């Protein structure tokens, strides 16, 4: 029993979970408002990481920036730019692929979403590369605070603790993700546009009658969701220093699982689900079952849905039929 390793793994899980949660928020928001599983969302995240790559190469950034003011500016530029671009991409996708199908049978937009996902992947694949591509990591990846947890013994049970390293880049990602989530909550809860979003989600027609511009509201939802996915893309590039055209499918799949696990349509649930999935993954690796982790994640998803069809925090009742 090594408390240090468990803490380290929990910290690893928080980092991965932060990224899943950011992506999951977009899924859950879009689902909440137009009841569409936006399959292209994972690929929006992937494109975000490539936008970061493009930006960094345009600025000629080669590696870690050690000068704090410059680093801060660079980070702000990276996030602002990528989030804006991806937000716009999301709006464009909504405008051309989903809006014409808003009153079509449910299956139709779902299938276009899959189509959009294919298109985004293939464009990146032929434009950049089939192989993993390096992205410079602007935050020195090995820099971090190393902490020695206290060691103690309970009766005959010795709890040891190897030192735990909290990498700055990971701390940054976790803090950023949490602040974005809080900002989103405030936006949805406290602003006029946020209210419009909520009312549209509850009853689109009623909201329309009350003077809410549905098209703008839905576009806004896509903008915010895609911008968050873009932020996750930047975080990914910062964390791993690499990206690939097909990371979107897998990350998207897990994030959607996170959204469903937490209760789709519920933003807190999405965040919770993201962290939960990351913990499951990390601790199956810790136990030496990396090769099974995917199967474990999806089995848990199926089990949760069997026992709680609305997800962990879901409130909306599933149709009984």
């Amino acid at each position, binding site marked *: 029993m090594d408390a240090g390793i468990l803490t380290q793994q929990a910290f690893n899980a928080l980092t991965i979970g932060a990224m899943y949660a950011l992506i999951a928020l977009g899924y859950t928001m879009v689902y909440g408002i137009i009841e569409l599983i936006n399959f292209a969302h994972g690929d929006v995240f992937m494109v975000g990481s490539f936008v970061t790559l493009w930006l960094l190469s345009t600025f000629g950034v080669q590696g870690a920036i050690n000068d704090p003011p410059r680093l801060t500016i660079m980070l702000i530029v990276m996030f602002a730019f990528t989030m804006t671009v991806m937000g716009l991409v999301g709006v464009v996708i909504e405008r051309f692929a989903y809006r014409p199908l808003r009153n079509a049978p449910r299956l139709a937009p779902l299938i276009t979403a899959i189509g959009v996902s294919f298109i985004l992947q293939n464009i990146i*694949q032929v434009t950049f590369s089939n192989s993993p591509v390096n992205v410079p990591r602007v935050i020195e990846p090995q820099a971090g605070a190393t902490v020695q947890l206290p060691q103690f013994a309970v009766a005959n049970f010795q709890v040891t603790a190897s030192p735990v390293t909290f990498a700055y880049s990971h701390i940054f990602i976790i803090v950023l993700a949490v602040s974005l989530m809080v900002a989103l909550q405030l936006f949805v809860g406290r602003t006029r546009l946020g209210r419009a979003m909520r009312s549209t989600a509850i009853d689109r027609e009623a909201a329309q009658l009350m003077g809410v511009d549905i098209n703008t509201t839905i576009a806004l939802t896509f903008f915010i969701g895609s911008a968050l996915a873009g932020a996750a893309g930047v975080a990914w590039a910062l964390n791993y220093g690499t990206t690939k055209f097909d990371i979107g499918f*897998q990350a998207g*799949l897990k994030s959607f699982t996170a959204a469903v696990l937490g209760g789709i349509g519920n933003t807190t649930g999405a965040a919770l689900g993201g962290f939960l999935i990351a913990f499951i993954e990390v601790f199956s690796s*810790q136990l030496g079952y990396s090769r099974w982790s*995917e199967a474990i994640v999806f089995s848990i998803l199926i089990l949760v849905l069997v026992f709680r069809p609305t997800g962990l925090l879901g409130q909306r009742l599933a149709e009984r039929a």
Partner: protein
Amino acid sequence: MKPRPLAFIAIVALVAAACGSSSGTQGPKAVKIGVDLPLSGGELPNGDPTIKGVELAIDQNPVAGYTVTINKQDDAVNGIHNPNQGATNIQTLIGDSSVFAVVGPFNSNVAQAEIPKSNSAGLIQCSPANTNPGLTKGTTGADLRKSNPTKIAYVRVATTDDIQGQAGADIAYTVAGAKSAYVVDDTETYGKGLADVFATEFAKLGGTVVGHDGVGANQQSDFTALLTAAKAKNPAFVYFGGVTATGGGLLRKQMVDVGMGSIPFGGGDGISDGSAATASSFLNVAGPQGDVNSYMTVAAIHDIPNAAKFASDYKAKYGTEPGAYSASGYACAQIYLQALAKVGSDREAVRNYVTTTANVFPTVLGNVSFDANGDTTQHIISYYKYDDATKDWKYFEQKDFTSGVTTTAAP
């Protein structure tokens, strides 16, 4: 069951066959070497340099009385090698009567689908890259060629994984002096096979395998959790069975991130993909700190007679450095061209000539001959280590696992 359509089809087939007959011509006979490799999507970097090696061999080794061209088949579907497409391709090549021999396939599971067909048709295949032992050896090998058990129709110039895994264990235990190792594989045929052999052989040498985990196709970007768990077990060596595309470079890069950068790292020829300057190569992805202390083996002889000439010829023609399997593709084609010159373009004659164990073929890989299973008798593995001066892999010794002779690089 349905007699009428059957009879009808039979007639159709006869008509079609009658129309398909060709007329004879004067001059050099046109023959083809079939090539079946993954040539699109993510696997283009594997197939493309290999087929270029074949083209170069045909250019440089003309055979009097024949004009040799290539019948090119791509076994990738949606960018990933696909056994079903491979089976279709070999069928096409069998159907093309001007094809007298085939180079390929690249991937083991494609070979599993193709071997029964080429064996049944008696069309010789030479794989430049298959290293899975089960394709030729033991009962699985025999099962694959059960329609003509005595007529080997599949040979390969790459040394099998069981030898390369031994070499990996040799590097870890002898060269790096590690007594404990952590093994990671990518759960794919090549990677897992190699990692399993490494684990067995490392234990045989006296080392301890402290852990063995695998990372499936959907987790190959994040190894931190796995490495944190591995780090706690204090391994003196980390061995990776897999290729760069399935996480080789990333694993090494993240080892540095979690503070395992000083631990030596080793892998097979799946991470032999060029210098640190080559985009997406192992050394490029792993980063400068990850490169240090990295070892790699290649399942081929290093001291080939004309290595420099081959490389410069290749570069002159294509403008790029040869790939990991360019020379192997070249060697396969060379063997076929020698057979063509000797026994003509009859498929059975070529097959018989190539697989006769007594025949020795001088190739760019040195002298190659095939054993009773169709495996190359060359069991030489070359060892490489990262060299900071050239930012590239540097050969330091090769070992012949048949004779046990080790040749060290000239200083």
